[in-house]
């Protein structure tokens, strides 16, 4: 006997939902059923929000953070110190640093780190645009806030070698940040301390 299943459209929806991070088969099914059975406009609202976010959000041309225009809010803010530039691995590393209120400069997100084992080379990262910014904006200090693991350290070393010919002080946030997880997994206090205790390279 043939076993009855959900109609193709629902099964397809479940399959699509499962591609989202953190959504397993059980939750995909629950979300799909909620979408199908909702008596209000909420699912349509979510669909519109997904589509419009995809249309309006793009990486900031300057630093790589999330933006709705060419420049993100941070880069467009003239009150922020131009002399300080903080280099991070991912755009998501910027908000935890912002939360500490300990840093009032600008950021540059690399979009990853140099990792031969994951086949990520320097040319895959936003390194050329970092050098360009250093030449154009002439910051007085560049703070490296990469993870304290092997790849984070190696990427910092690479950038330091590349940038040491410019008249800029190069520093690194204090170690003790969790390895691998990056800045997201560090709490505010740890991050403020790491910023305050930065060391010269």
């Amino acid at each position: 006997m043939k076993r009855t299943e959900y109609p193709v459209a629902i099964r397809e929806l479940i399959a699509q939902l499962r591609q989202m991070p953190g959504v397993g088969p059980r939750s995909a099914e629950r979300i799909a059923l909620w979408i199908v059975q909702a008596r209000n406009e909420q699912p349509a609202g979510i669909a519109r929000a997904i589509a419009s976010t995809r249309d309006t959000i793009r990486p900031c041309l300057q630093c790589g953070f999330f933006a709705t225009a060419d420049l993100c809010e941070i880069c467009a803010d003239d009150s922020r110190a131009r002399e300080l530039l903080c280099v991070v691995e991912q755009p998501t590393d910027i908000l935890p640093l912002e939360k500490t209120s300990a840093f009032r400069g600008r950021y540059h997100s690399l979009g990853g780190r140099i990792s031969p084992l994951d086949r990520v080379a320097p040319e895959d990262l936003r390194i050329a645009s970092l050098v360009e910014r250093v030449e154009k904006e002439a910051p007085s200090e560049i703070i490296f806030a990469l993870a304290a693991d092997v790849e984070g350290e190696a990427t910092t070393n690479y950038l330091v070698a590349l940038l040491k010919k410019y008249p800029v002080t190069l520093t690194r946030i204090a170690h003790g940040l969790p390895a691998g997880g990056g800045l997201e997994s560090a709490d505010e206090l740890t991050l403020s301390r790491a910023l305050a205790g930065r060391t010269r390279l």
Partner: protein
Amino acid sequence: MLRELQLRDFRCFASIAAEFSPGFNFIVGANGQGKTTLLEAACVLLRLQSQRSSSLAPAVRVGQRSFVVSGHVGEHRLQFYYRALRRKVAFDGVEQRDQAEYLRLVRVVSFASHDLELIRGPAEMRRRYLDFIGTQAEARYRPVLRAYERALRSRNALLKSPHPRPRELAAYTEPLVRAGTSLREMRAALVRRLAPFAEASHRAISGGHENLSLEYAPGSEEDFAAQLARTRTEEERLRLTIVGPHRDDLRLQVEAMPAAQFASEGQQRTTALALKLAQAQVFAEDTATPPLLLVDDIFGELDAARRNALLAHLPNESQKLVTATALDWRAGDWGGPVLELTDGEIRRRDK
């Protein structure tokens, strides 16, 4: 003390449970009944790694996708769940993200017939012996070892890449040097602690006749950075990092001659045993709780007198799980229960 142990879908066992006593526990059974498997499960539960293989994947029962080992150490309940790419550790029912606390509970020393490989096998065997002790003895050891391995593999990948990548290589050389230097210091300190114990044990087991000497032979010089710089052209040619702790060895000499080439079979067995006893003594020195000893079928070529002598040399305070295919050689009263393993069932005989 490990009071009881439960296995689910672990190697040959769909489900089995065993209860242990302090001191000696003898596990007997014919070949292939799962004696080694029981000891392996104890090691996996307490150390989250197998003394038998470097990956846990082969321990999943054929046809299944995950295994669970659980048990009680004193009043604490330990659980370990394994599935490819996923592992869960719980202590008293609470999932542990940081395993350091969990791993502090019980240390393990495993004695097995393949310990002879420690003497005869390649240097990798002796590095693994040191690392197995180091990761149990010092919280810092594992992260340093992992960092070294990661930096080494990254660097070798760069050396193998079709285009030369000197700047990336330099960027990865620094973490390699830092982790490598720490690892060298930690291994050197470890050998300094092990040596007197191993040398004394060897002398005792051989009836005071033979002298063993144990020496750390590092694969890198004190100034690791300078040595790496000197070997750069050779590295380019071989496309490999050729110096470093991944080339470390432990130099073993019996009566001032290299044990691998010159020692007799019996002498080699004695040395292997002495190394393991030294490990137990280092652990006993470090913690209030003596280590659990897993003694797997090491009686092979030994006569009955030596078998009994061997048991007598095992540290008194430790709990011991001892496997054998038969026990008719036992002389005197070692105490402890006998667990008979047949067709996936355990029958316990207390005397």
